[in-house]
């Protein structure tokens, strides 16, 4: 289960809506519960918008520069947080995990997809790709007011 704090969520939605009709992307920082009641539960407390580095049209593609991801990871470590997920948007398209998403994913993080329709956030889903990038399991996603 991955849960997104309201402030982080506002950042993600604002970034996705601002980049519409292009895809946006970013990193999610937070913690994975090791407490007694939240073991394994992911809690996103900060969202970091990252520049979409895809060289072509960005209406349906995104790419994260590894350097930017490394920077996000450093920022997380400095704040005592962990890099636990990646988010990106699907403009005028449902929040599913596309073939392109799967083939360019990695199995270590939660992948949250935000569907933005007509410039407004519509719905979201989270996915956990397998190590061979052949399938992605849907993960329970909790965002504010969901």
């Amino acid at each position: 289960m991955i849960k997104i704090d309201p402030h982080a969520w506002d950042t993600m939605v604002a970034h996705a809506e601002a980049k519409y009709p292009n895809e946006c992307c970013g990193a999610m920082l937070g913690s994975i519960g090791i407490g007694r009641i939240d073991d394994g539960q992911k809690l996103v407390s900060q969202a970091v918008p990252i520049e979409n580095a895809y060289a072509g049209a960005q209406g349906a593609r995104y790419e994260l520069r590894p350097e930017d991801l490394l920077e996000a990871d450093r920022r997380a470590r400095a704040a005592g947080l962990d890099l636990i997920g990646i988010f990106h948007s699907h403009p005028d398209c449902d929040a599913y995990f596309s073939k392109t998403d799967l083939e360019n994913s990695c199995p270590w993080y939660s992948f949250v997809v935000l569907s933005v329709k007509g410039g407004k956030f519509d719905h979201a889903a989270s996915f956990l790709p397998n190590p061979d990038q052949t399938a992605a399991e849907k993960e329970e996603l909790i965002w504010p007011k969901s």
Partner: protein
Amino acid sequence: MAKVLIPTPLRQFAGKSDSVQADGSTVGEVLSSLTSQFPDLRKQLFNDEGKMRSFVNVYLNDEDIRYLQKDSTPVGSGDTVSIVPSIAGGAVAEKGVAEQTGHAAAPPVSLSKDEILRYSRHLIMPEVGMEGQMKLKNAKILLVGTGGLGAPLGLYLSAAGIGRIGLVDFDVVDFTNLQRQVIHGTKDVGRKKLDSAAESMHDINPNVEIDLYDLALTSENALEICAKYDIIIDGTDNFPTRYLVNDACVLLKKPNVYGSIFRFEGQASVFAFPGGPCYRCLYPEPPPPGLVPSCAEGGVLGILPGLIGIVQATEAVKLILGNGEPLVGRLLLYDALAMRFRELKLRRNPECPVCGDHPTITQLIDYQQFCGVNIQDEPPAAGSKESEIEPQEVKHKLEHGDRFLLLDVREPHEYLICNIPGAKLIPLGELPKRVNELDTAIDIVVHCKSGMRSAKACDFLRQAGFKKVRNMRGGILAWSDKVDPSVPKY
């Protein structure tokens, strides 16, 4: 030798460390020494052919090794090797070309400025900090009861910044509550406890979301309500609810933070915690009805629930933070008169019917029946019309000078609060040895505070051979309501 930073999801394969020192003079050697230290990590980074997985990038300090000398890139002891995945994707449908305008936005904060100020005394402690405060904000606690224990719980948990608190209560504030239920004030008498409690909590901390359940927790609704919360705190004063909350927590695998109070003594523990005991391991069966008096019958030092409620609140906050040693497998006993804390060790009972190895209770049962409370609902246990008498009729008999004995079986300190003139006082506990003071020939009317103890006294007297015994229905409280309003109620 270099330091390798381990991404969060891979730490489980690297001895839970966020960084590891690995030997080697090149990046390739460092990685191979890392993966021989942690063989499980190898599968994450390399495929079956031993080739690095397509999404894995390796950085030496700030440089991608692909642009240096790849695996042969030399490393020194001050160097840091990072493992960074490459990630891309996109929706399938192609869209029109749009200009790339990306830039990194200002880092968002996880608590508002006001909240940071409000919780600053938490935030400056590393045991809480931003992370802990966020955990508190994301936590959901159900408080069963907003009375003596619920009052300090509601106030302190709101102040501490718990994100969502559910309150269960169907009662109304009355004057006898104010001696200990500090979440309610004199102005609240007659209001629903839920409304009064929620108002106080919101006044302390408007950030808390409060769910109100204007009902009694029952076998029908308990699972549904408890399932919405992370921790259940039992602040009730009756056995059926105590067993109900315990069983619901065991079935839902949620911690039950227990507290109870009586006169000058209190208890607290954390039940239904994984591996720990539950309330039934401690008390497999409820006491016979009437044996353990409630606070309404036995009284309670007003300050006592404050202390026990705060022990419960402390345990709830510790569970959320994942810090410290929880009160699991330990029953804390507090004696206010001696001002002494003691601890009893508790073990999970493998034979426990609900949390044992072979549970026989797998769903909620009828707890009123289990605790034998149904029979007790009507105060006169041996209640039949002939064995009871209304207060008005007693007044009539007194005014008419009828020959009968009015017997008060309350305690002397209660008699001093108020009494019915002419009544003879023999406390229930002294009745057996003082029964010879009574005359079997004359009518006897027995009363107490509300009719419970006098019913027991009537039973005893009948068994002792007294035939003409009647119980005054509703006790001196009913006398105050129906006969003489100048008699104070307590």
